[in-house]
């Protein structure tokens, strides 16, 4: 550094050092959060990946009157403990659905018991000596194999972990969120339009504004209590149903939608409104044809983010009973249902290892849905963004 340089600054070195330190500090924070995220994802993928496959055993199944009377007679007694109870219980149903099976014997790949699955996946297992011998024999003969776990995606919850899947919770989530959106979207957007375009600026509108912002920050479990009190106790709507869950989540998402829609409406430049009014357009025409279309991408983004928020919500739904054991997918919003995070919550509390891997797999499914929703929000915003 030349001291004759007229721009010479004696504090330069220290300044550079400071700004470098600051830069590295912020970078370090970023790295820490990324590492945590990576560890979480890796852990879930490692735990969940084994749920992609499920063990099956090739056995002879006899379809006859005895099997109908008791599924225990459908296969040789020595295999009974190695096979999935829930799958065996389906045998009489299969005959009922397909009477031509009656009186036949078929060699089939039957779903194995979860302990057998654990053994095949080299986790901790509990199988007694006699069954172990039979199993080792079967393995040696190539009668035991791991196949893609379709059951996880095509079945609901079950008391047999190997027979349980995410489907009923997934359907429950869809139904619940459909109710949420059908209620929260129109009410939230209309409220925002009223507050932004029609209400006069006075103490009342300020009071409303403060309270809506406060509502957005209320712990979600309180909305569950409110839902329980209003929808179930006062209105008498069916407990555990997607209807009640959806309405409860609607209460929770409404303030988010109102706040984000207002921000979107406010970001439409005043000059557009003036242009409209100066042409002799009515307020309805200006708002409907010029302001709302311009605010729409922002409104959609807010709604989708509210939806994603609602999708991950568990606590208020547990309060309104959506944590029930739901083996069959609900077919209407009035039926008892559960949602994906509540299902994960239930599984996570189960002692069986097989439920743990399902929890992880379920988290991955939920995360991919959330990521898709958020990408959709980004896509919509980009697509409909108005270039000025």
């Amino acid at each position: 550094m030349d001291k004759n340089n007229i721009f010479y600054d004696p504090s330069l070195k220290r300044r550079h050092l400071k700004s470098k330190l600051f830069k590295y500090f912020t970078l370090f924070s970023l790295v820490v959060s990324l590492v945590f995220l990576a560890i979480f994802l890796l852990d879930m993928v490692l735990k969940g990946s084994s749920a992609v496959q499920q063990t099956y055993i090739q056995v002879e199944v006899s379809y006859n009157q005895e099997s109908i009377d008791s599924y225990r007679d459908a296969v040789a007694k020595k295999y009974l403990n190695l096979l999935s109870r829930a799958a065996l219980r389906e045998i009489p149903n299969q005959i009922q659905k397909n009477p031509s099976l009656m009186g036949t014997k078929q060699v089939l790949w039957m779903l194995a018991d979860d302990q057998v699955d654990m053994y095949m996946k080299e986790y901790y297992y509990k199988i007694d000596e006699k069954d172990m011998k039979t199993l080792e024999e079967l393995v040696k003969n190539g009668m035991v194999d791991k196949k893609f776990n379709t059951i996880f995606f095509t079945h609901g919850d079950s008391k047999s972990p190997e027979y349980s899947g995410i489907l009923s919770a997934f359907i429950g989530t869809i139904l619940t969120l459909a109710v949420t959106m059908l209620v929260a979207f129109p009410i939230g957007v209309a409220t925002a339009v009223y507050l932004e375009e029609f209400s006069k600026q006075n103490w009342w509108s300020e009071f409303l504004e403060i309270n809506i912002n406060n509502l957005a920050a209320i712990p979600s479990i309180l909305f569950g209590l409110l839902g329980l009190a209003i929808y179930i106790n006062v209105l008498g709507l069916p407990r555990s149903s997607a209807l009640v869950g959806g309405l409860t989540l609607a209460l929770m998402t409404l303030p988010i939608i109102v706040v984000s829609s207002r921000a979107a409406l406010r970001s439409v430049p005043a000059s557009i409104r003036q242009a409209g009014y100066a042409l002799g357009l009515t307020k309805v025409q200006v708002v409907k044809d010029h302001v709302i279309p311009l605010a729409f991408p922002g409104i959609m983004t807010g709604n989708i983010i509210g939806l994603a928020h609602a999708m991950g919500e568990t606590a208020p739904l547990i309060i309104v009973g959506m944590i029930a054991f739901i083996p069959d997918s609900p077919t209407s919003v009035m039926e008892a249902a559960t949602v994906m995070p509540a299902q994960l919550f239930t599984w996570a509390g189960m002692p069986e290892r097989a439920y743990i891997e399902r929890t992880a797999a379920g988290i991955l499914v939920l995360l991919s849905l959330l990521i898709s929703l958020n990408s959709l929000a980004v896509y919509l915003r980009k697509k409909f963004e108005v270039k000025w």
Partner: protein
Amino acid sequence: MAKNKVKIAVKDLNLWYGDKHALHGLNIELYKNKITALIGPSGCGKSTFLRCLNRMNDLITSVRVEGEVVIDGKNIYDKDVDEVSVRKRIGMVFQQPNPFPKSIYENVAYAPLKHGIVKKGSGCDELVEQSLRSAGIWNEVKDILKEPGTGLSGGQQQRLCIARTIAVKPDVILMDEPTSALDPISTEKIEALMLELKKEYTIITVTHNMQQAARIADMTAFFHLGDLIEYDETEKIFINPTQKKTEDYITGRFG
């Protein structure tokens, strides 16, 4: 001035923004098929006055207006007058060109379609062409009518806004510093256009540019702190003003 026909007669017009008295008892007669320029230092109430003429001030909640603005014999502040229908007849062009972020065609066609002046497929294309021609921009945009109006240059956008205003078939066009955001060449085009348009319309324009007022305005009104100081033929105002304040302003001693 006997041959001038009065289009707008303003009588004792007072305006308040809340407690702030912004226009002090204005009396002025604005003439048909003339360009009237409103000049004066910033904040003297030119825009406020202009917005009184098409009741755009109604959109500002704190505004209170007293007095009369009589257009073609009817006071537009009468109880039986709807401000929306006033604006159909008194168009307005703003300082910043503000086309809708829609196609050039839709920019012009939207309001006439809503007002039922034309219908889709019957007269609409013609009206769009005619309005764009009148605004002197037809040749530049006739091949890109489907493209967004916001993609045009500033000067073109302003002429598009003028086309959009004439499409509604007003009698009066109010312009609030229509060229102050534009380059000199675009400004020249707009000025030429205004001279053309005054044959059919009455034009009231706010301008910060003294030469512009001198170039295009028939009449000039000088405002100061909410008062109308002097109003006369442009030549008179610029060459031989009666008020000291007008002279000071025009010679650049303040403003």
